[in-house]
Every structure is written in C-alpha cells, then in structure tokens.
C-alpha cells in the first residue's frame, strides 16, 4: 500500500483541509458530512469561512475603486488568521467547587467569542485576536490584543470603544477571564456598504 503525502491530513482539521472545507461550504454543506460536522476544529473553520464569504460578497457589491490584488491579499490574510485561530490552544479553566470536575474552554473557543463580538457589531471586520497572559491561572488578569478593519467614514475612537465594550460583555458572559486591558488596532479601512448593525 503506497502512502500519498498529499493525503496526509492537516492535524488541526481532524483530517480535512481548508480547501475541502471551502468546497463543502460552496455546496451548501450538503451532502451532510459527519466527519466535518462532528469536528470542533472544522466547525470553527466553517464559521470563519462563512463570515469571510459574506464579507467577500459585500466587497463585490462595492467593486468600483477596489484593487483585486489587494482584495486577494486581504482574503488570503483572513484565511491564514482563521487557520491559525482554530488551533485549540491553551485550556482556560472554569471553576467548580467540586475538585473532581475539571472544566475549561479552549483558547480557540474564546477567540471565536471575541471574533463574533466584533464581526456582528457592524463597521468592523475582525483581524488577528491574541490572548496575552496566563489564561490558565484563574483570576490572573490578561490582555486582549485585536486588529480590525474599519468601515470608511466611521470614527476610530468611538468604534474601538464600542468594540472593547462588546468584547468585555461577551467574555463576561461566556468565560471567567479577568480582562486587564483590551488593545484595538485598526489596521485597514474598507468601503462602506449596507450595514446590519447589532449595537
């Protein structure tokens, strides 16, 4: 039996590749593939890729004045970020009075919460998201470092403040992390469009 090197699964995607997931998404997630739908990593990647498809569609609606090469680089950068962030990462503990129970969220799950807080806000497209600090020690303050693209015409300061508020609220709802600081870097500006704000 020969072993084809190209068939070696990507270890972070439970045997699948980003290309396969892209094709699966293009087919409307049909026929149902249990090996994808029962993989947390694949599902995380699909969430990110779905969001990216929506963003790409919006960009096409505002085609004029856009540089295709720049768009390709932007999409490729977002794909890389999605791929990086699906790695489970560290375990972020959740307390319980019974020491027999060890409860945790993965770092990837928490990054997903942060990303959604930004991407559903309107006016920003989330880029990189880093949890800086000892997330494995309960109560230790950590720093959140995010980058985002800003819709043209929006106020940088107001949008960054609103993003911080949403991230703080989302993390307080789903985690026990102590947030010392949230740094927001606006690293891109994109053309405005019809927004579906969720303020």
């Amino acid at each position, binding site marked *: 039996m020969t072993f084809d090197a190209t068939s070696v*699964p990507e270890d972070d995607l*439970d*045997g699948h590749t980003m290309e396969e997931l892209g094709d699966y998404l293009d087919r409307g*997630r049909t026929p*149902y*593939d*249990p*090996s994808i*739908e*029962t*993989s*947390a*990593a694949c*599902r*995380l990647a699909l*969430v990110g890729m779905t969001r990216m498809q929506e963003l790409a569609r919006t960009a096409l609606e505002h085609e004029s004045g856009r540089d295709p090469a720049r768009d390709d680089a932007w999409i490729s950068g977002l794909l890389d970020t999605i791929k990086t962030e699906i790695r*489970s990462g560290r*375990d972020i503990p*959740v307390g*319980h009075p*019974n020491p*027999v*129970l*060890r*409860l*945790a*969220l*993965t770092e*990837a*799950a928490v990054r*997903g*919460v942060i990303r*959604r807080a930004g991407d559903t806000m309107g006016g920003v497209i989330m880029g990189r998201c880093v949890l800086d600090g000892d997330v494995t020690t309960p109560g230790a303050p950590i720093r959140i470092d995010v980058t985002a693209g800003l819709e043209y015409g929006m106020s940088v300061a107001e949008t960054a403040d609103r993003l911080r508020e949403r991230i703080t609220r989302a993390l307080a*709802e*789903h*985690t*026990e992390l102590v947030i010392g600081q949230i740094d927001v870097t606006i690293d891109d500006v994109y053309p405005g469009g019809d927004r579906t704000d969720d303020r």
Partner: protein
Amino acid sequence: MTDDTELSRQLTAAIRATEGVSGVYPAQPILEAAAGAVAVRLALRVPDVLVDIDRADDFTTVSAHISTAGERPATETLRRVGELLLERLGAEPSIRGEVAVNVKVRLVEEAGASAVSGLA
C-alpha cells in the same frame, strides 16, 4: 478489560440532551480520534460514542468535548454537563474507585447554529 462503548454512548446521548449543549465532539486521545474520524468518514461508525472513558487501576477519567449554544453562558452549560456526568457515573455500578471528569468547550456556537449542524 471493560468495554466502555455502551457507557460512552449513554453519556454522549445524555450530554447531547443537556440544555445549552449544541454538539459533542470526540474526546479520545489524538491517534484514537483520528482513527475514529476515518471510520466516520467511511461511514463505518456512527458518531455517537464520543465520550472518552479511561480506566487505570481504581481510577476512572471521563472526558467530554462539547460545543455550547451562544444563547446561554458557556460556563453555565459547562458546569451543568460536568455535574450531569458526575451524577451518571455515581449511579454506574461498573465505576469503582476515584473518578475525574474533564469537560471542555471547543466552540461557542452562534445563536441558532446548532439547528444547522444537526448535532444537538
């Protein structure tokens, strides 16, 4: 050696039925999980045995990986699943000695996403 397939199946089903849980994922060690994923892909195995049960001497470690529905705090769902597993294991005659239960949230789903996945 005890075959824990049926117990794992029961625990998987119980977790799936827990409020706030939108999916259950394989919690087996990586090589075992990879073999399982291949089996699922080849339609050799239904993904309903996803809770890992590891017995060593008189110590049993039970591990579960889940996704939670975004409408509810993930911490709340996590605690609920942990307590459910402890309760079930307490009532399981084949479990003797000490027990450790690990539950991990791999994904917090967007509201309504679990209906799409068909995992819940």
